[in-house]
């Protein structure tokens, strides 16, 4: 496969877009449907990445790739799912303030453990030794294949989100997000529904974290900061928290525009790339979050189709 036409920065930028898109789609289920304000997305993503990395590098497996990858990724998904179950149990019946504290606290715990358990994680020095679970030729070819696999995973998540929107389960989530006391009064188990949602979506975030570990090859505690949560949240809010395609469009317009177009194709001074561009990116993402929520709270795509239909039927 001749990939001379493909820039290495473009592969990396597209991978970032796919990764954040996957996280934003999962956040859409939590925040857009269930109204669970998960400010600790990076915690679940990070635990997946670190569990995968530690198991892959530190354990002497009796078999090699691709089984090694599959077993480690499954364990990472399970770890994130168990964490989601625990945190979900803690926060599912709390108000937004408690959810904020629980999810932010969890993200902080993951970062503290990644920093302090340096025998396992490498701590502040970081941890290398990760590789692709295959070798099809050059680095660029391996990266391109991993990008394609990640994109396929994101498409599966998108299909799942699409299915949730059209299923009775999705309607229950929307009802809970709209008015939890009302859903409870109708005999629905709101706690268990939110717990199930949080566990499954957290596990999927952990799996994406493991996939990110494979691509970057090197785990660094600097990568499990609040920027990951911000990127997913700003993409989702810009596109529209209530719509399936909101996360997709929003992430393309934010991460895609900045990480690919601005960083790779605009003729900016080289010295800007070390500090000015990353700082500007975060500042603009923060500003976008503010402006969208103040002036267009439903994002570019607006509210759900069913809400529009109801307004049409009832003439409101």
């Amino acid at each position, binding site marked *: 496969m001749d990939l001379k036409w493909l820039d290495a920065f473009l592969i990396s930028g597209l991978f970032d877009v796919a990764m954040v898109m996957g996280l934003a789609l999962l956040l859409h289920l939590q925040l857009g449907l269930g*109204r669970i*304000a998960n*400010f600790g997305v990076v915690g679940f993503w990070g635990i997946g990445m670190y569990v995968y990395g530690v198991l892959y590098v530190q354990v002497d497996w009796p078999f090699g790739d691709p089984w090694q990858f599959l077993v480690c990724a499954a364990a990472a998904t399970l770890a994130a799912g168990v964490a989601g179950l625990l945190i979900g149990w*803690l*926060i599912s*019946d*709390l*108000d*937004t*303030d*408690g959810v*904020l*504290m*629980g999810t*932010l*606290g969890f993200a*902080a*715990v993951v970062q*503290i*453990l990644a*920093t*302090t358990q340096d025998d396992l994680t490498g701590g502040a020095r970081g941890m290398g030794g990760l590789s692709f679970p295959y070798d099809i030729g050059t680095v660029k070819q391996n990266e391109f294949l991993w990008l394609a696999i990640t994109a396929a995973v994101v498409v599966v998540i998108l299909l799942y989100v699409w299915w949730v929107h059209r299923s009775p389960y999705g309607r229950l989530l929307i009802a809970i997000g709209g008015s939890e006391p009302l859903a409870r009064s109708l005999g629905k188990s709101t706690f268990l529904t939110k717990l199930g949602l949080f566990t499954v979506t957290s596990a999927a975030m952990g799996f994406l974290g493991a996939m990110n570990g494979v691509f970057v090859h090197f785990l660094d505690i600097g990568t499990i900061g*609040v920027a990951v949560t*911000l990127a997913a*949240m*700003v993409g989702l*809010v810009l596109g529209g928290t209530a719509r399936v395609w909101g996360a997709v469009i929003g992430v393309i317009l934010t991460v895609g525009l900045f990480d690919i177009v601005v960083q790779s194709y605009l003729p900016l001074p080289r010295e800007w790339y070390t*500090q000015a561009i990353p*700082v*500007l990116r*975060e*500042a603009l*993402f*923060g*500003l*976008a*979050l*503010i402006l969208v*929520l*103040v*002036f267009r*709270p439903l994002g570019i795509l607006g509210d759900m189709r069913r809400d529009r239909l109801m307004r049409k039927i009832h003439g409101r």
Partner: protein
Amino acid sequence: MEFVTQSLVIGLTENAPLVLAAIGFALLYRLTGLINVAYSETITLGAYFGMWINTTYGLDFYAILIPTGILAGALSVATYLALFRPARHHNVGALELIIISFGLSIFLRHGLQFVFGYPERFYDVPSPDTIMILGVGVTSFRLIALLSVAILSGLLYLFIQRTTLGLQIRALASDEDLARVSGIRPLAVTTLIWFIAGVAGGLAGAFYGVGASVSPLLGWRQFLLILMVALVGGSWGLGGVIVVGVATSVALAGMALQFDQVLYAQLVLIVAFVVILKVRGSKLTETAKV
């Protein structure tokens, strides 16, 4: 016994700004219903304002406290008038207000680096004297910080609980319509709340900054502890925030001594606070009324 006295002295002197910041945050939360994530940047900017006045005009640390508090208070009021008040007029929900404050926090944290530069900054102050208290060496800055925080916390508590303006603030918090009928001007009182909270946060930032260094993440690193103290202690009013804040400061120092690692102490506290919140349940209303 030595462990207890060390924990008490180190906890109270090193973490005194935590109590002041938590009071400011809780005041805003209890009286306006808003979880303001950008409060962490009020703390950070307080540290930067203090450092800027100190290094630009050559004023000593104690002289910069009043202008620093005023600047931080003004910034806090500006965010209310420019952002949270219009957002309320646009009928933005409680959850969205928290996300807006999260966005504002990120914007200010990164935007300030274009103004103050990327590297860590330091106050230009003479080396502090070391004073022995119960066998533990404490710098004069930390001791003055503790005294200042104790005085400011007491004044804030008395202001809210005992003055006419404090009564108006509490009345507005409990029933806005009734307060309005009683002749209380909501805009003036709410602006006052934001100013006081900003002053408390800014001064806490200055005390944090002079004790170590000033960096963009200064406030964010403290935010989770402040949030936890305000949420758990806030159920019992400002007095509860002070008690939980002091207990947290001492526990943090004690565990840091025990584990020889401050991060483990933070980890235990985070878990403990989340479990407390779970057991107690969230009783406060979700309706934000900035």
